[in-house]
């Protein structure tokens, strides 16, 4: 599905990433872990096109998309959520999800202003579709609430609903469990599994090890901008280099 080959990124003189190569297999849940400052979010930003890599290539289904802008990648079914949830705060919950259906609708500026009949029916369609996704994440009752007023947990769910509305092939989630309590985290694990059951490949940056070990099929470990290890959760758990990176040099 998503293949990264030799990705490197420098900001000015600072090297944030170097020589990152791995692949996210279709239908899997792949976790990307590593201590703070390992470059996980930077990697996601490169994968989704928020900025281009300094070197290396990003391939999606074999296609080189390294220099594509995010909006173009979205049409290929690549979408993400954000660490600090990026909702459209002044829009309603339903409208947020409807933006997620942007790639599946096509009314332009004129059709919208003139209320063409086919635009009206398209509007009805995406409205229904959006409601479906709110139900999927379990917040249908909030549809008319302004998104900016949601609690952190609910906001997270909305962000996932919005991303799912895009009918992604690959969903990248940046620390979805951050700021959630344990019962919310459990619900999240359940939700991610349901997402996978819809045949959506998931990439996950996460600090919550229990969650990662529970749901991930394979893991990629980053440290200080380089790849430390890849493998199944079990392999990673037993990898001494990973343990050292996380716990510091053993005495």
């Amino acid at each position, binding site marked *: 599905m998503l293949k990264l080959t030799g990705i490197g990124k420098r900001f000015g003189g600072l090297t944030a990433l170097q020589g990152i190569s791995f692949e996210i297999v279709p239908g899997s849940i792949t976790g990307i872990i590593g201590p703070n400052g390992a470059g996980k979010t930077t990697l996601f930003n490169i994968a989704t096109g928020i900025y281009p890599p300094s070197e290396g290539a990003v391939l999606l289904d074999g296609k080189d998309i390294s220099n594509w802008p995010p909006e173009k990648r979205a*049409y290929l079914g690549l979408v993400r959520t954000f660490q600090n949830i990026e909702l459209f705060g002044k829009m309603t919950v339903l409208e947020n999800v*409807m933006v997620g259906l*942007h790639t599946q609708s*096509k009314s332009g500026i004129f059709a919208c*202003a003139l209320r063409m009949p086919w635009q009206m029916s398209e509007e009805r369609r995406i409205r229904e579709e959006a409601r479906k996704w709110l139900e999927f994440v379990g917040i249908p009752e909030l549809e008319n609430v302004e998104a900016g007023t949601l609690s952190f947990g609910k906001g997270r769910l909305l962000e996932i609903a919005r991303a799912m509305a895009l009918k992604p092939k690959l969903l990248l989630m940046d620390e979805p469990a951050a700021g959630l309590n344990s019962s919310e985290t459990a619900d999240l694990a359940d939700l991610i599994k349901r997402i996978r059951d819809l045949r959506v490949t998931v990439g996950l940056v996460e600090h919550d090890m229990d969650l990662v070990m529970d749901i991930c099929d394979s893991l990629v470990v980053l440290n200080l901008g380089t790849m430390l290890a890849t493998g199944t959760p079990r392999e990673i758990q037993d990898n001494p280099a990973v343990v050292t990176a996380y716990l510091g040099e053993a005495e």
Partner: protein
Amino acid sequence: MKSDKLKFLLFAVVVLAIPLFIPKGYLTNVLIFVGINSMLALGLNLLLGYAGQISLGQAAFFGLGAYGSGVLNTQYVINPWLAMALVAVGVAAFAFAIGFPVLRLKGHYLAMATLGVGVIAYISFNETVDLTGGPSGLSGIENLSIGSFVFDSDIKNYYLVWSFALVSILLAMNMVNSRFGRGLRAIHDSEVAARVMGVNARLMKVQVFALSAFISAIAGSLYCHVMTFISPTSFSFPVSIELLTMVVIGGLGSVFGSVLGALLLTLLPEMLRAFQDMDIIVYGLLLISMTIYLPGGLVRGIPALFRKIVPARGSHA
């Protein structure tokens, strides 16, 4: 949705009925300009309030519309309605073209660039004397007409201008509550998230820039045919600032806020006349205090104030 339609209908009825209830004369004349300013404010609000992109050069498009129609009307034989359409499309195309480099900028750089566009347009109006008459202005523009019906009185012009304003308002309301409008508002709230959702932020910003130029140009054409005389000072930097003020005071991201802002700022000099030379001071004070105490603009501030007062009364009862 439904309530929006109702609001619009109500508003349209009020607008169409107003001339029947106000004393004939000067007020009708002022309300014509409220209509023109409403269109201008609406155009800017689509850009600023919905897409979150500032423009300090809005007067340029207004002026291009006015001079386009004015020059075509005085120096060439062309149907003024056709001219109006051609000019508006031309101005929109111009905005579309400069939109790509201009709207790549953000924040105060964008403010500066749009201001620059405004200054350059203003200087061009002044310097192309053969075409525009330069600083002395362009006179002899005809009133608009349909067949033998000439829009030559205040009341006729009132209905002319406000029908355009109402159509613009309706189209704008349609647009902001649809795929395109949602895209714009998404860009405003979080450009990065919007792009990740497949919203082509760059293109959309440029499109709405062109649309706002289009509306401003139509307003300009109407202005030149209503006034029958135009000169560059009506399209200078302070005019852009005044438009910005209308939008902010009326309410960012609100179609009716634009109208309210236009109404208030067009009538304000009237209300401040009692202060004589002090009016400029009162104007400045209003700008500051409104921004501090009514940041959502009048369109949100008044209902909020109302809600504050009404429950207070209810709790006593």
